């Protein structure tokens, strides 16, 4: 059994071994217990400074990292940077060098450019944690998804997972595909053919543009957010048609397994990719994901920031 991660950073699940994924999930279990206490704080990262560097708006992920850091007694600093292209700000390189000069113990970054965490990880000596970069990876989301699935299903290996929606622009899909394949799960991606990226089958997934087939027999369904801008780019004709063909509702769910679980990384478009009754229904684990997100991020901060 390993007891630490080999890389300084967490850029993507692509770089993690199955043993490392299990280590994170197991560590997160004890972290979850902390969150259930009356006094939700342990001194593990006392005296450590964690910077949340967010170039994209985010409520859930930023708050989740902030709470995770604070429950471990770290000092958490939030930096929100406007990415307005009108005002030309400091380069990412200069920002990273300035942060380095303040000697942080971890930097959590979200950025609209794929590769931005990788870029700053080469400048910063401290761990860099990717909180979502472009359409590349969102590893903590995938890890909290795995944690949530394991909590419910006990065993990951052999589970059938369908990820439905805008696969092309989804960092959540990519991180989940890497992580789930490593854990021996069977992943199908589904959505309109215009939003399935080329050669994705080489990542080891099946493709189905028929959502009904993707739902049938799935143990886990992950719905992804659809963004309105995609319609303007001609990737689908209307929200109405998207919802009708690819949205998850009670009717489509009739084909699902009895014990299916439904997840969504948020924020949801109720009534678009997921109907309200399904989102709030008995199969939904959407709020469990949020709860578990804190535990998983505590585990990652703990493992990377030297609390041994």
């Amino acid at each position, binding site marked *: 059994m390993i007891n630490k991660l080999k890389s300084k950073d967490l850029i993507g699940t692509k770089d993690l071994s199955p043993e490392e994924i299990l280590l994170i999930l197991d560590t997160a279990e004890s972290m979850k217990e902390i969150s259930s206490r009356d006094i939700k704080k342990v001194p593990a990262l006392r005296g450590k400074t964690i910077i949340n560097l967010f170039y994209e708006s985010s409520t859930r992920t930023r708050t989740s990292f902030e709470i995770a850091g604070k429950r471990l007694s770290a000092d958490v600093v939030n930096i929100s940077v406007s990415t307005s292209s009108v005002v030309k700000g400091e380069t990412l390189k200069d920002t990273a060098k300035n942060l380095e000069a303040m000697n942080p113990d971890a930097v959590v970054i979200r950025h609209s450019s794929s590769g931005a965490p990788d870029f700053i990880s080469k400048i910063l000596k401290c761990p860099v944690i990717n909180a979502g970069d472009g359409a590349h990876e969102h590893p903590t989301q995938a890890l909290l998804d795995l944690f949530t699935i394991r909590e419910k299903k006990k065993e990951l290996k052999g589970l059938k997972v369908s990820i439905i929606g805008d696969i092309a622009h989804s960092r959540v899909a990519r991180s989940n595909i890497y992580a789930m394949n490593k854990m021996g799960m069977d992943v199908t991606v589904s959505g309109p053919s215009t939003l399935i990226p080329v050669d*994705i089958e080489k990542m080891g997934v099946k493709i189905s543009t028929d959502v009904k087939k993707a739902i049938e027999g799935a143990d886990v369904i992950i719905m992804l957010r659809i963004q309105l801008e995609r319609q303007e780019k001609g990737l689908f004709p209307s929200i109405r048609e998207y919802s009708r063909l690819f949205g998850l509702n009670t009717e489509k769910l009739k084909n699902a397994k009895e014990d299916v679980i439904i997840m969504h990384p948020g924020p949801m478009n109720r009534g678009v990719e997921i109907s309200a009754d399904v989102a709030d229904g008995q199969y939904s684990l959407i709020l469990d994901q949020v709860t578990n997100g804190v535990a998983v991020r505590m585990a990652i901060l703990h493992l990377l920031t030297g609390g041994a």
Partner: protein
Amino acid sequence: MIKNSKTLIKNGRVIDPANKIDTVLDILIENGKIIEIGNSLTTHHSPLTTIIDASDKIVVPGLIDMHVHLREPGYEYKETIKTGTEAALAGGFTSIACMPNTKPVNDNQSVTDFILDKARKEGVVNVYPVGAITKGLKGEELSEIGELKSAGVVAVTDDGKPVMNSELMRRAMEYASMFDLPVLSHCEDLHLSEGGVMNEGFASTELGLKGIPNTAEDVMTARDIALSELTGARLHIAHVSTRGTVNLIRDAKNRGVKVTCETAPHYFTLTEEGVRGYNTNAKMNPPLRSEDDLKAIRDGLKDGTIDVIATDHAPHEASEKDVEFDKAPFGIVGLETALPLTLKLVEDGVISLNDAISKLTVNPAKILGINKGTLSVGSDADITIINPEEVWQINVKKFKSKGKNSPFNGWNVKGMVNTVIINGVKQI
């Protein structure tokens, strides 16, 4: 140059594809011209004769790069006519054609005059400006191509951008034909490539970067070939990167269409895999393609479909490339690495040394209609002498170019420029 001085290049393997010469010969130069080529030439020990011993070396016509971005006027922080031509010289090039996407754009006589004047004063190789097809490269109205021709441009192009309006491209071809100017086409359908930063394929899917499909290049190549057939204009397709485009050009040539094309060393050396790690020095337009495309480019070079090897030398300041991948500008430098990368093709058995030299000399000269690229008696004494066996390491810090944006930094390569003579004067 001292008047009446002579230079004698002795015992080199002389390769002059235009004259089908490939043998050990001597070359005698006087007053900037090649005056004699033959065996065991002597100069009767004239004290004014410089003798260059080219034993074990290859003596070729001065190399010609028909696709260079010199950046001046307007972007002197990236490159100047001085530094760009110094880079060309270091790479063995004696003549280069410079693209019009400067600031201001070379779409009128005054800019052409400026470039030629600067090149005379500060340039160290022959500079041939290429004019814009449309004013400001906007793709809306034709430039004054007649005036550009009389000012000295050797071709027209909107390089960096395509002329998306097919009617305007048709008229540009018809109009340029009156002046016997080739139209150099940057083939890219801007709708298909919109937002793209690398080749569309497995790597772009994994990296989460927007891809540019091969089709963006191929549909425009097909269009321009059709327009060339319609108008009878001389069409030259710039920086070919895809199998589809190679096939289209091969078929068009077989039909007798007046189409020629070039590729760049990076397209026959690297693939999209080079982008992994978000390497902005592997970002150019068109992008590095798949292994299959690379193979097709090599086949196209081999069977003669691809006439020319040109660099698309595109210098940028270091800080411009040291950013997030999607924010970095397209383009890499190439003048100081093209020769060894081309010689590697020869070593790998893809093309013969003679073909390689043709694609770097006489072929681009013919397309541009410039009186260069041969070692014929009476021609300008532009000569490059190569030491084919010298192994060296590419080091961007040693580049003469201001641009250090090369994906080949640190590569060990074989084949070094030994001597460069321009208009009879030894420059290196």
